[in-house]
């Protein structure tokens, strides 16, 4: 029987919920406290918890370091390309400035474009923050070997 069985069972239950909560924080970000930074950290925490309980090898298989590296860059790309996209999508005929989210949706009265814009930007933040948190964790945790199960 595997050691720390309870920890494993409980964390298996918790991890999906942590991720769901992360997304809740993400999408609630434009109405209340929350947003990409916090959500990114929470989602990274889910993976870190997985690594703590099941070991670095398992975590590396679930979220490979290459994914982490490209994720960090991808988030910045999402973020910046929202700004660049607004340069090309001229809202209401007149040219808009960099990061003017109003260009993203024709409904100017409700400022729907502003909502879309912040959601997209926060998505980029989420990707980068989660990836960078994991990259830091991998870099530090990868330096010492895992404690073998017998030594617990």
């Amino acid at each position, binding site marked *: 029987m595997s050691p720390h069985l309870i920890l494993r069972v409980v964390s298996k239950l918790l991890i999906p919920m942590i991720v769901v909560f992360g997304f809740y924080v993400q999408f609630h970000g434009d109405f209340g406290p929350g947003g990409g930074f916090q959500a990114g950290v929470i989602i990274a925490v889910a993976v870190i918890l997985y690594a703590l309980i099941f070991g670095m090898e398992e975590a590396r298989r679930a979220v490979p370091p290459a994914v982490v*590296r*490209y994720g*960090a*860059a*991808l988030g*910045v*790309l999402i973020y*910046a*390309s929202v*700004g*660049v996209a607004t*340069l090309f999508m001229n809202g209401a005929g007149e*040219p*808009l*400035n*960099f*990061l*003017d*989210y*109003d260009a993203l949706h024709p409904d100017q009265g409700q400022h729907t474009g502003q909502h879309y814009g912040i959601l997209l930007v926060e998505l980029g933040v989420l990707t980068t923050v989660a990836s960078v948190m994991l990259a830091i964790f991998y870099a530090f945790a990868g330096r010492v070997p895992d404690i073998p199960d017998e030594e617990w």
Partner: protein
Amino acid sequence: MDMLASLLPAGIAVHAPALIVVIPLIMAAVAAFMPKGLWAWGVTLVTAIAVAVLSLNILGQVSTGGVISYAMGGWLPPAGIELRVDMLNVPLLLLVGIVGLLCVIYALPSVADEIAKKQQALFYSAFLVCFAGLLGVTITGDAFNVFVFLEISSISTYTIIAMGAGKDRRALTASYNYLVLGTIGATFFVIGVGFLYMATGTLNIADMAAVLEQNGHDRVTQAAFAFIVVGLGLKAAMFPLHVWLPNAYAFAPNFVTAFLASTATKVAFYALIRFVFSVFHPEVNFVAMSFTWLFAVVGVVAMMVASMQAVFQTDARRLLAYSSVAQVGYMMLGLGMGTAAGLSASMLHLMNHALMKGALFMALGAFALNFGVRRVKDLAGLGQTMPASSAAFTVASLSLVGVPLTVGFTSKWYLVTAALERGWWWAVAALMISSLLALAYVARLLSAIWMETPPAGKAGIAPARRLAPWMVLAPMSLLAFANIYFFFHADPLVGLARAAANAVMGGN
């Protein structure tokens, strides 16, 4: 100028102030995706060309159409973030753009030699982030935004300096020292900005100045001034706050040293000018006091002490790094005169110094690339084995001393004229003594290069001539040539420097 202004189609030119920061930032992410260093270098080169073109275009736009103000996200200043270009920051944009491009060309062989293959793509990515940060500090019209971009550039600078660890592990401690001091500097700066926000209720630089003029300067703004001067002074390597610089320059990869020496401290110095002149008024009592008793004094002490320290260095890059601290002293002295002439001399020296130090560090990089030499005594005989690089090095180092027929003479001439206009004879004397000290340390380098014989190789055979790769030679020779060219055609640079000083001092 009209030609430059119409360099780009109108649709792009309108957004040029935003694009010049955004393109390097996006390309940094793209470079991180690249599987090979060469591809990442390609991305970097394309970016640097785009930035150079944009900076030329912005110069054209500003000189024909006046100040550009760009509202980020359509949120109008002072509430929104404003990108603002006037004649003061145009020279800096040009400097970062064009010297940056030359450095990037130089980077390929140098980085291939110094950085592990696996890390090259990420190295270029970090460099582009630094590039974007420096351009951001230069172009933004928002005080808090200055802090953000300053941190963006600094944090990536710590990384790229630490990557010199492949050749010399001391790069790690140098970078760590810089990290600690740089963070303290950034904290001081942001505390100062916080005080200013408290006193004025705005973060827009132009708006701050307007509110301060109306409300007068109270204790809070005086504290803000002190914090900002210390914070930015640290970034600009103002004399007692320069201790991070020599090691950072000595152990960073050669390309990084060449780039940072010609741009990073200059951008911080620009930010200092922007705050001292545009936010706080130079005629306010405590600001005027700080000119004479802080900037001028610190400048003169830097010119003496740092030059003296440079004379006794054994590492060639450390020697030039101390000389950089001394040259920052010249700029501080110009700033401390508090006159339009002094400030324009200071701006002129800023640009000229970038030309000299760019060429000098590139040449030292070429020596290191071919022979792996770093110490002054190892430079022996390079005049025979690498004549082209040595010639470029010689021109730039004569310019550093301020020998006639080089730009170094031009900017020292303007500094001396400005000092005499102010009646500061002691400053003229300090300039002369410091130039003599510069002659002393440059003579050490040049005599090693030209007078001594190259060390005999195996079996007593003198080493053959070895040409540096053309990608190293071309940008280096161009910079060295610029050191002579702008002596004979001083008008463009002097004009830029005058316009910069007038932009903040008013008058003509």
